């Protein structure tokens, strides 16, 4: 009998598991695949405030700090987190207005974003396109190598005594939190659903209807190239994230949509999305034209009806919890897991959770 069973070993599940185990709980962490192999391992690793929803800024700022200091709280595990300035740019008057409005909301939420002139933006990012007419600058930004996330968490989890069961799909949950898994039954006093885009199916095991929309985000990476940029670069709409890693490769993201779904996973890039995303990147940093595109892939991001997170107790089912559907969830992930662990341990979380009552009420009304 475990104190808590966490289903889904992404960044949310791993962080929740780690902090619960350290608080003395006997934790089992299950995943149908390998640790952090879905969204948590294939996302753009962006630690940017300028793509984070305003309501999540306080969380993202704290998580930014956690990512940068990960070795200290994760037994030396790390994701090559790098701090750098962030720029969000506008090429048209319409985008400039959007930039200003969005910077305002995010600044109110605590992100130190200032609007700068194109000349100043080019001082910060010398290879920036001459077509930029306005920019938002945030000194707190950065990026990680998301593909290292599983490797970073794994030893710390095992050290903390978490029982990690990879490739152990859960097929359903019976009364008393008896989990029907591929490798037999697992029983726990509490459960945490941390299954990304599969939260909808997991909630259904408990008879809860929680619609989760699936975003099929596309990413593109180039071969290593000489340094062309030193910021995390985005556009006002949020439809671009661009950064160059220490090894020279440039990662192009921004949430352009590919083909896929929660049953088949990320299947294929759409040629028009692929081309559009890469063109937007080269429009922002023209030197990227010299690169060769090496690989494109897709990751599934979950979104609730109001695009705000689902984090908190599951109404009507004692000791059942949920965490996920966080926009740019990787950025805030480790901090949100820590908060949920506080709540599960019966303490008041440092910052409020995002209970799902609002989503279930909506569903009932509809």
């Amino acid at each position, binding site marked *: 009998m475990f104190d808590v069973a966490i289903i889904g070993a992404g960044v949310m599940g791993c962080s929740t598991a780690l902090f619960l185990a350290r608080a003395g709980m006997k934790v089992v962490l299950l995943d149908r695949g390998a640790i952090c192999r879905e969204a948590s391992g294939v996302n753009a690793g962006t630690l940017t405030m300028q793509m984070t929803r305003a309501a999540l800024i306080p969380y993202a700022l704290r998580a930014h700090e956690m990512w940068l200091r990960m070795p200290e709280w994760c037994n030396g595990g790390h994701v090559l987190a790098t701090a750098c300035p962030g720029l969000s740019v506008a090429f048209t008057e319409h985008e400039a207005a959007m930039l200003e409005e969005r910077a305002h909301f995010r600044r109110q939420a605590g992100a130190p974003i200032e609007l700068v002139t194109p000349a100043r933006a080019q001082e910060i990012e010398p290879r920036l396109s001459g077509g930029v007419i306005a920019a938002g600058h945030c000194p707190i930004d950065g990026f990680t190598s998301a593909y*290292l996330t599983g490797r970073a968490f794994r*030893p710390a989890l095992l050290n903390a005594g978490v029982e990690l069961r990879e490739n152990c799909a859960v097929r359903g949950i019976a009364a008393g939190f008896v989990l029907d898994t591929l490798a037999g039954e697992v029983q726990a006093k509490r459960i945490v659903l941390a299954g990304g885009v599969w939260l909808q199916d997991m909630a259904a095991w408990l008879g809860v209807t929680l619609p989760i929309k699936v975003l099929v985000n596309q990413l593109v990476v180039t*071969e290593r190239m000489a340094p062309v940029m030193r910021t995390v670069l985005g556009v*006002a709409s*949020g439809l671009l994230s661009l950064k160059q890693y220490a090894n020279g490769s440039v990662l192009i993201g921004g949430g*352009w*949509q590919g*083909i896929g779904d929660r049953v088949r996973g990320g*299947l294929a*890039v759409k040629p028009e999305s692929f081309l559009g995303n890469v063109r937007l990147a080269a429009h922002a940093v023209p030197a990227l034209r010299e690169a060769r595109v090496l690989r494109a892939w897709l990751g599934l991001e979950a979104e609730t009806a109001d695009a705000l997170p689902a984090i908190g107790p599951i109404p009507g089912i004692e000791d059942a919890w949920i965490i996920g559907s966080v926009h740019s969830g990787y950025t805030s992930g480790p901090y949100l897991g820590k908060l949920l662990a506080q709540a599960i341990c019966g303490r008041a979380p440092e910052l409020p959770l995002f209970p799902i009552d609002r989503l279930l009420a909506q569903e009932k009304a509809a």
Partner: protein
Amino acid sequence: MMHDIAVLGGGPAGMAAATEAARRGARVVLLEESAAPGGQVYRAPPTGFVVPADADSRVGDALRAALRQSGAEIRPGCRVWGVGGGPLVPQGMAAAPFRLDALAPDGQSFAVEARALVLCTGTHERIIAFPGWTLPGVLGLAAATILLKAHGVLPGRRVVVAGAGPLLYAVAAKLLKAGAEVAAVVDLAHSREWVRALPALAARPDLLARGVAWRAKLLARGIRVMAGAQVSAAAGGEVLERARVGDTWIDCDALCVGHGLVPATEATRAFRAAHRYAAAEGGWVPVLDADQRCSVPFLYAAGDGAGVRGAAAAPASGRLAALAALHDLGMLPDHAAARAAPARDLARAARAGGAMARMMALRPELVQAIPPETVVCRCEGVTRAEIDAACADGAGDMNQMKQFTRCGMGPCQGRLCGETAAELVAMHCGGRERAGFATGRLPLRPVAMDALLGDFDYADIPVPNAAPI
């Protein structure tokens, strides 16, 4: 324009597939990466280059002539970087036409669409890492073949030829003919393995005779042929200077080494077709029926890319694939009669080809012998020790190992390191089936951004709607 059938790859299988389909009235397009169709064995010499005719060039010329006369649209020099359509559509949608995205020789982007797609993508060479294998002067047997055949260039003056399979003797014979000194032929196979293969080779007396002639030529010239032996290390300062076999260091300025051929499954993996691991056929291969149909409707694979059976078997499998595609498209009523001859040809040729493929199958002892500090992934500089450590840290399959180490994330896209790395992962996780393979990704080849992007205006970029604030 919508084609009935697109053929990807213009080796013997692709040429035969396109020819067969076009002759029977289908609208066919063939895309090929090289400057002319031919593939590796029947590679066409560059324009204006005259190469004396031999058995291979005569077969290649005949396949090319038939292709030209068939009416198929031939597009050589095209780098196909994208495959899509077919089953790769949003949930609930009917299968789409297949789509190939490519760059033309002049750098222009284009796409072709077809109702059926025949993949004849050939193989890439397996080179199991050993100390010194990344030194300049060490190259693949297939690379040496290209240098010799297409460019008339010697890889070195004094050459060690090492590895497995018939390519070993073909390269040695070609080197001698071209005037190089062959310092040694180092064959992984023991003589008894060749003897065991003889009955199967008897099905193709022409190929057998040629192999015997190659061996005889080496013997006549007093070339050292070491059977059941391997190059365990290469060494030199800036470049290769010597290769080690057993306790002996052999001076050389080129080492042509190949440990077999691996089917190129980038496209079938991208389509999420079913695959199976078949060591004797070169590795992971698409699951096919007797007519070369993949698990994905209207998708076919033929030639060595569908499982190594050799160039002689490739045209028959290409024809079978084309006939199946025509039949599935409703363009060939009497399929049973049409397929009989190529099916027979394939069975016969595959017997000899299969024996050679088994000789070229991966030899796990080579992987076991790799020292910890030896680089396995040369693009990313990942050593065996790092792969072992990632497996010890919980990477239980190829995709997770790739994430944990960056092995296979470089410009070769895993083509060079993949076999060694997979075997290492398999040693930890309990077999190649469990180790799996890296998920198929686009682009199929690295593609120059500049050519891809073309000229565009900012206003033309279809930027999606902004996310909520």
